[in-house]
């Protein structure tokens, strides 16, 4: 019976052919991760239903006072101030529970982080309240389309 002889260089060939796709996959992963890399603090991680709207804009978010708008409530710096459902139905434009704390705070940049499904009626009331309280620099926060 004849033995099958394996040529000496086949081991090296095999290793190379196995390693090359691995390097390719790692390189692709690295590029994808670097493209979507972000050090921004995730918004409302504990709230499973909360999702920010998606945008094409790339302007970085500066530091500022955060005002979160969720299905459940309105939060100023993570402190719940009012119920969203109540002000969605109410006719009054000024949200008093938000107005007073905003009036007393030092004015700077106000970042509104609204859930993507919130109606503009409520967003409009919040913008109006912030304006009445003397805030001028107001921005909407959204997540870029390159987010993971």
């Amino acid at each position, binding site marked *: 019976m004849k033995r099958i002889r394996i040529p000496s260089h086949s081991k090296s060939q095999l290793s190379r052919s196995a390693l090359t796709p691995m390097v390719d996959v*790692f390189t692709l992963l690295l590029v994808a991760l670097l493209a979507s890399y972000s050090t921004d603090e995730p918004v409302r991680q504990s709230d499973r239903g909360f999702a920010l709207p998606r945008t094409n804009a790339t302007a970085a978010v500066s530091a500022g006072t955060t005002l979160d708008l969720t299905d459940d409530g309105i939060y100023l710096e993570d402190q719940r101030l009012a119920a969203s459902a109540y002000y969605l139905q109410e006719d009054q434009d000024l949200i008093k529970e938000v107005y007073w704390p905003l009036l007393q705070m030092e004015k700077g940049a106000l970042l509104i982080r609204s859930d993507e499904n919130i109606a503009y009626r409520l967003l409009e009331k919040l913008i109006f309240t912030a304006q009445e309280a003397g805030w001028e620099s107001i921005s*909407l926060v959204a997540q870029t389309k390159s987010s993971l």
Partner: protein
Amino acid sequence: MSLLRSRRLRRRPVEESDPRPGLLSIISLLLLLLPFLLLTTSPQKLAALSFRLPPAGEGLPPLPKGTIEELWVQVEPGAVVIHKAIRRSDVDAGQGEADWTQSRITTIDGQPDLRSIQRSLREIKQLDPVRERIRLHPAAETTAAEVVTLMDAMRADAIGELFGQVVLAASK
């Protein structure tokens, strides 16, 4: 002599260099980088959308005079309407006379037809390339996601910038 010639002409076997050490060093570097990036990256990459707001009780500063006197986009149930007033330039036109027109773009499956909106806005931009400001009147029921999408569509299209200053106005 013939022996020497035959030795000279004989080819030496080419030693193939082993590529594995090079590849392994790349892999080890990637294996160090990938977990580090995966652990430190945040799933959300945030962007701020600033919008113009008139100070309480006042209006925005006036725009330099251009061909387009007024321009706003209004969200209505089932459509997005672009309103514009183009200054009349014919000889018999009086001071401040403008032609008011509106283009109604119906939604597709409940979503704004962004391509048609951008096409209309591009035509308007070509009429008045200096104009930067546009007003957006979302409907009361328009969601935040739709507002952001419309703001994006009004700021720029595939060709370039459209209207950089979006004024978020009251719902009508």
